[in-house]
């Protein structure tokens, strides 16, 4: 079959729409949750951090904690959920892979695309709500935010391809991955600002690509960009390289999935 080895956009969009609908199909309100859930989550964070913890941002005087968190939190959630969801796509679709020949990389890729689509709709709703509740957002910053989110999705897709292919051979990955993602979450300045890191750790943590994404997203939407640095070049290149490496690894292993599923 000649169409087996190629990227097939028809199958891809079928899988993406199936992925999105699986999450909302059984709900009474259906797709309304796509917007409602992020807003409820925002309300929860506002209550917990502003009222219970009384969290304050020391350096960013003009910005409340909730916008500070929200702007970084949704992209992270999309990134982390995409990888965790995509990880199981090959093993959980064993029956399909064993019966139908199609480009199997579409399974993890569609999981990433679906997760990002859903969370970006939520992100937009959250940003609108922040604006309505009095946060002064730099809407022009979206010019930078959109390509950055695309890069983030590319980074996630690369990692998702690697994880889903490795999962076939190393079943322990499903157990290791969630703690790894949690560790990554707390070592990325999402709940805190990178300025709050101990001086001894800051030089190490600055190499975290997610730290670059998070701080640049905040700057684009809340405070305006600081000076350009080495990471502005390194992280986009790294993200694209991750995707290339992910494809290479996946294609090398793809022909043998069926033997190990």
């Amino acid at each position, binding site marked *: 079959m000649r169409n*087996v080895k190629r990227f097939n956009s028809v199958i891809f969009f079928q*899988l993406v729409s*199936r992925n999105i*609908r699986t999450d909302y199909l059984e709900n009474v309100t259906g797709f309304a949750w796509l917007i409602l859930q992020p807003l409820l989550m925002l309300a929860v964070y506002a209550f917990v951090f502003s009222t219970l913890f009384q969290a304050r941002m020391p350096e960013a005087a003009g910005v409340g904690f909730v916008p500070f968190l929200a702007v970084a939190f949704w992209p992270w959630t999309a990134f982390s959920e995409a990888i965790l969801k995509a990880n199981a796509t090959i093993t959980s679709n064993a*029956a399909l892979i*064993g019966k139908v020949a199609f480009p199997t990389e579409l399974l993890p890729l569609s999981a990433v695309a679906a997760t990002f689509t859903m969370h970006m709709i939520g992100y937009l709703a959250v940003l609108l709500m922040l604006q309505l509740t009095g946060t002064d957002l730099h809407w022009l910053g979206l010019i930078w935010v959109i390509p950055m989110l695309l890069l983030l999705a590319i980074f996630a897709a690369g990692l998702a391809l690697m994880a889903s292919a490795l999962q076939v051979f190393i079943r322990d990955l499903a157990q290791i991955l969630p703690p790894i993602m949690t560790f990554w979450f707390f070592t990325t300045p999402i709940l805190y600002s990178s300025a709050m890191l101990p001086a001894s750790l800051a030089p190490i943590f600055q190499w975290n690509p997610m730290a670059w994404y998070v701080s640049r997203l905040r700057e684009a939407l809340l405070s305006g960009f600081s000076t350009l640095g080495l990471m502005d070049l390194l992280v986009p290149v790294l993200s694209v390289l991750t995707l290339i490496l992910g494809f290479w690894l996946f294609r090398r292993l793809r022909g043998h999935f*069926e*033997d190990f599923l």
Partner: protein
Amino acid sequence: MTLPLVKVEGVSKFYPRVHHPWERLRAFAALLRGKENLNGAEVLHDVSFEIMPGESYGIVGENGAGKSTLLKVLTGVISPSRGSVTVRPRIAALLELGAGFQPDFSGLDNVRMKASLLGMSPAQLDQRMDDILAFADIGEYVHEPVKHYSSGMVVRLGFAVVAASDPELLITDEVLAVGDESFQKKCIHWIESFLQKGNSLLLVSHSMFLVQKLCHRALWLHNGRAHMQGDVFEVTQSYLAWHESKADSERQQREQLAGASGLYRISSFAMLDADVKGERVLEQGDSLEVSMTLVSPDGRAPVALFGIVRADGTPVYGVASDFDGIQGVRINANQFQYRIRFPDLLLLPGSYSIRGHCMDPEGLRVCDTVETRFRVRGQSRELGFIRLPHEWSDRGIPIAGDVSRPKEGSGE
């Protein structure tokens, strides 16, 4: 020069051993280095064949011979460990009709998914959707989730999408056995018209009838090797003959075991009046007489059981001495002789076996078995294996005048 549709060259397939997670890891490390671990189970060994345009091909073989693996290699689901596979035409596989169906989604959604997997574009699907729904014939159920479908409905929908995908080569594996009578008929009709259009079929089946009916050439897979390939009739007949002899030797083994452990046994068994060397031949309507001597260590008369079976083991008739209240003739303290005669044998021409069994005196347990093959010769064109007495009525049943022909007859 016409190119073959499918060219399989020297294909071998090893399934890696993954009993232990560490083996999985080792195999993975080997794959990363670009090598393949070849010390697993070899499921296919050096299989080569070609399918030419307009030709249909059958694959036969025992369970576990590697047929399904070969199909998976052909459809591209798995890659061969060695050798190469070239498939030129647009193919569709009817391996498992419900494959790719997700139970929570409606029939319509699943049709869209399956159609995309089969390479149909959304525009093509829109065009063919009516045909698909008409072929599947499941009515309003298309809007229901597939989990509420009966297995027959899943199969109908699956076949309908495959049929609509307009393949040039259809690969199918025993799926036509599912679905009800009328749907099966529909599928066979569809396959026949599909073949008439000059398309090809690759059929894996245990039904030699179907293989002979639909295929031109065939491949006999045995233990992962191409045991024989060529004309469909030669291959299927050799395959059937092999099966028969295998079943035969198994039976003999079983009988030897039974004989060794039995207390009562057969010391001689002979067909009378037909003691030709080699094959024993009777004319249709001859009588068949058999004599058997049984040994009884305790001096009680064992029960004799005689049976006639067809060459393939189908029982035709059996009778035991105790059914008829017969006691054998005592030859000496431990030996009894039984003789039975079947006059005017009603068997139709063909190959049969006569079996003698020695049972314990209670007639409960078979202790020993002996059998002799014989052939019935004749010119009869009657069907089956036994001639039932019959008579044709000499007065024809009057047919009412042409005017009042039954209605249902004229409908078609």
